[in-house]
């Protein structure tokens, strides 16, 4: 039930905030803050109770399970469960949720009630996506997060918001419909094979599929996730949506919405279609590498600060694609880390941009420069996250990218070598942010710019703490996700007993633990 409460609290909080705003706008803000905080605490409680899912063994990585028959005539159940992977992402969701409410505290004056309703419903949809173990329900939540996001961009966005919101909606809607068809097809294939018509994820796992059908179905799922992620030919909606959205919208988009795509690949694409994924491994990794390089180059070329940050997401999500298709534990653990770290670092950068925009009403890099003296706190925070973005050791992103590159090197060294070049490019664009905005002899804007206030320093302080913690002590996180990741790896290796892919796995495992922990870890039950 606790899982259901996670979603219900957000939805109810959203409705309450909407109603409360009719009398008092501050009430709406407080209600949203309390709702997200309560959920955050609940998620932490789950985590504390199950610090590392190891005790449950590799066969049953599900920590909490909730099931209720929804539409029995179709074999649709309301099935929610959480394992290490979803737990981490739910934690991230709630963390970012609290911060995005705080970020909008002064930014949103216009129709604040409806704003908070939308914000909380997006969070509810995202939480639902991370918790669903029924494909129909997954699709349901996948769409639930779409509409409020559309409103968020379309009503509270910047100048070009209508265009951006349309683009966002149509890209995601079109791609997810392909997933719907693939889900339905999988449902019928499984039903005809076994006589059991169900959308339950656990039962659909291991459905025997003809190779061609498996490939097509995988593409059906993958296109929805790849658009969300986004991967290069389909990334088009992202810069517009991120740039035009209000700060909280950009934060949620970058930190959470993109993660649903990555989560979908890990949770659904790889375990459901292991053979097709293996056949698609090299093209998948190449797509990831292209995303890394392309995102970095375009980020470098932007003059709009927000757009620049948006393109860094393309760059970072390329790593996710690369790592996911490397299909070994090292890389997948890196992907999990990357999801969390990108969520925090990019979220922080968007908050910074938003705060700056609130003060100087421009996002144009050409009009910025020399701000360090005026706003040293902002400068310091900016420096931390620019460095995180380029992957400085000691901050979380370094661990993530290192793990991904190490893991994917074992899968395909050439592609990885090319992808590594992206690190150089990301260094350039990250430093360019600092150089353009904060350094320089003379401030480009003479008038007084207020620095971060207490509220903003709380937001930024917690983000910095999180990214440093992930950078120097990532162990609890990796422990939590390990059983889930092992489970994913198992599904691919079981169906590939004849393939030689198993080989790199063993050295990887011992290698990981030694490198990361510095002490000999429990050797990953397999």
């Amino acid at each position, binding site marked *: 039930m606790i899982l259901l409460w996670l979603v219900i609290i957000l939805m109810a909080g959203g409705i309450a905030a909407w109603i409360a705003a009719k009398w008092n706008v501050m009430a709406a803000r407080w209600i949203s803050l309390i709702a997200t905080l309560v959920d955050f605490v609940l998620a932490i409680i789950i985590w504390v109770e199950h610090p590392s899912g190891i005790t449950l063994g590799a066969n049953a990585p599900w920590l909490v399970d909730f099931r209720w028959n929804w539409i029995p005539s179709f074999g649709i159940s309301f099935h929610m469960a959480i394992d290490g992977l979803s737990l981490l992402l739910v934690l991230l969701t709630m963390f970012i949720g609290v911060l995005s409410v705080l970020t909008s505290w002064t930014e949103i004056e216009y129709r604040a009630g409806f704003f908070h309703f939308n914000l909380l419903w997006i969070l509810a949809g995202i939480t639902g996506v991370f918790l669903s173990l029924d494909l129909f329900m997954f699709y349901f939540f996948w769409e639930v997060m779409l509409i409020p996001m559309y409103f968020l961009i379309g009503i509270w966005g910047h100048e070009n918001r209508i265009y951006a919101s349309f683009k966002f909606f149509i890209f995601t809607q079109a791609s997810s419909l392909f997933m719907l068809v693939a889900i339905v097809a999988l*449902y019928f294939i499984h039903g005809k094979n076994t006589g059991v018509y169900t959308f339950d994820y656990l039962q659909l796992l291991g459905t025997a599929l003809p190779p061609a059908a498996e490939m097509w179905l995988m593409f059906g799922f993958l296109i929805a996730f790849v658009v969300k992620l986004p991967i290069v030919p389909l990334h088009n909606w992202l810069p517009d949506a991120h740039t035009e959205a209000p700060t909280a919208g950009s934060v949620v988009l970058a930190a959470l919405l993109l993660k649903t795509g990555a989560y979908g690949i890990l949770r659904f694409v790889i375990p459901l279609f292991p053979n097709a994924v293996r056949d698609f491994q090299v093209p998948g990794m190449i797509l990831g590498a292209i995303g890394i390089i392309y995102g970095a180059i375009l980020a470098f070329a932007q003059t709009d600060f927000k757009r620049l940050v948006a393109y860094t997401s393309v760059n970072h999500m390329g790593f996710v694609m690369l790592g996911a298709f490397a299909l070994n534990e090292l890389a997948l653990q890196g992907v999990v880390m990357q999801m969390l770290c990108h969520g925090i670092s990019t979220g922080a950068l968007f908050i910074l941009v938003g705060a700056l925009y609130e003060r100087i009403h421009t996002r144009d890099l050409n009009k910025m420069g020399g701000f360090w003296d005026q706003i040293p706190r902002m400068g310091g925070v900016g420096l931390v996250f620019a460095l995180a973005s380029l992957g400085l050791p000691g901050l979380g992103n370094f661990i993530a990218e290192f793990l991904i590159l190490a893991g994917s090197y074992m899968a395909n060294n050439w592609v990885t070598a090319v992808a590594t070049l992206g690190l150089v490019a990301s260094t350039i664009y990250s430093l360019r942010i600092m150089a353009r905005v904060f350094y320089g002899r003379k401030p480009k804007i003479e008038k007084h710019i207020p620095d971060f206030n207490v509220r903003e320093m709380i937001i930024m302080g917690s983000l910095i703490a999180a990214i440093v913690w992930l950078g120097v002590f990532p162990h609890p996180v990796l422990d939590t996700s390990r059983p889930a990741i092992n489970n994913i790896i198992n599904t691919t290796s079981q169906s590939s007993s004849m393939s030689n892919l198993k080989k790199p796995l063993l050295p990887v495992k011992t290698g990981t633990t030694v490198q990361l922990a510095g002490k000999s870890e429990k050797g990953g039950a397999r």
Partner: protein
Amino acid sequence: MTVSDLNYLMPLLILAGSSIVILLVIAFYRDHKVTFILSLLGLIASFISIIYVRGLPHEIGALVIVDSYAMFYWGLIMLASLAVVALSYGYFSKMDEEKEEYYVLLLTATLGSSVLVISRHFISFFMGLEILSVSLYALVAYLPERKRSVEGGIKYLVLAAASSAFLLFGMALVYAESGTMDFTKLGAHINSGAVNTPLLLAGFSFMVIGVGFKLALAPFHMWTPDVYEGAPAPVTAFVATVSKGGMFALWFRFFVEVNGYRYHSLMVLFTVIAIASMFIGNFLALLQNNVKRILAYSSIAHLGYLLIAFLAGGQMGLEAGTFYLVAYFITTLGTFGIVAVLSFTERDADNMDDYRALYWRRPFIATVFTAMLMSLAGIPLTAGFLGKFYLAAAGVNTALWLPVIILVINSAISVYYYLKIVVVMYRAPEEDVVAGVPAVTISPALSVGGGLVLSVLTIMLIWFGTFPGGIIDFIKTMVSGISSVSVTMVP
């Protein structure tokens, strides 16, 4: 025909009777409210009498059959008419014309559609169709003072008459070949060997023209936007729901009875029609700026989607089609209901400007409209999503990959024009002041009937979208009657 047969036709008798009663009442005492209440009562009585029909299925002569399938569609049609009547009161209260005969025509049109649903013979088919059409000619042109009203009425009259001629000619050809007008006997005749005679195929094809016209499928859709735009909004809702629903129910029954699924050429024909309807409906809707025309083109596309269920056939197709039709009824009544409640005396609220910043002025109506549009676009939490899901399931189940993929592509296209309306509704009112657009005309207050209908429709929309178990089971038990014929294809 015995007296007990009349029991089975009680809903129709009540409908016919109440239209006569209303006519007489009008002759003595002309009053809008009285007429309105009488027609409401007639429809409610008719709906209740459906519940008391027992002992199904029951054949009456060669002409009609009352089975659970027909009962379901009766119920659907009655409820839709009820909603239209409830919406009409507020709408026509603003008008200067004599309003009373409107309700009579509405009841007779409902009667025609109900006859279609139980038909199993060409005679009753054509009779029902003509009762429906003739009433509609007058209904479409009911407000002759308006600019487009008469134009719409005449277009509908001419084209409907032409299509009826096609339909009749098709029936004649089929009759000439098979010597029977009874659906079941026709099916038996075809089963006995006369499958691929050119006369039969030509007859069926001509009938498709007539039916396609009524269902507004491409390429027989030309009348739709003009009639939708010209007709008063409640009539538009009626044309889009009751008239199409009755026809669809009949055509599905006919096709199953004669087992048209064995005709590969007919299947190809319907696939082409379905795909053409989807694309033409959606692409032309993209170009429109008039809300009623957008909805008209969108309804063409939706009937194209519906054909996927028809193509899939079998029990699953029948259920999917029925569920989709239920969702389509709810959303269509809802959208045109909103147009009706926002309308002015001189014209309907079909201009985009009428919806500008509606959310900030009339949050309830805008929220309902948003929900309806989301349902049309097929977004979860709404009945429209489950309907589309059901259609996709039926299509995938019978491996109709091409139509299903086209459905997906078209759903994505359609999102654009639905969002276009949504965007206008949520636009900030302040922007208009800046842009110098004149202040929006204050639209009239919401009538009790209108508000009630919209609330009920919205609740149903969300309810069927989130907890569809009950309605799906109900549809399953109700429509299981006619799809007993096995589907075997003959090239």
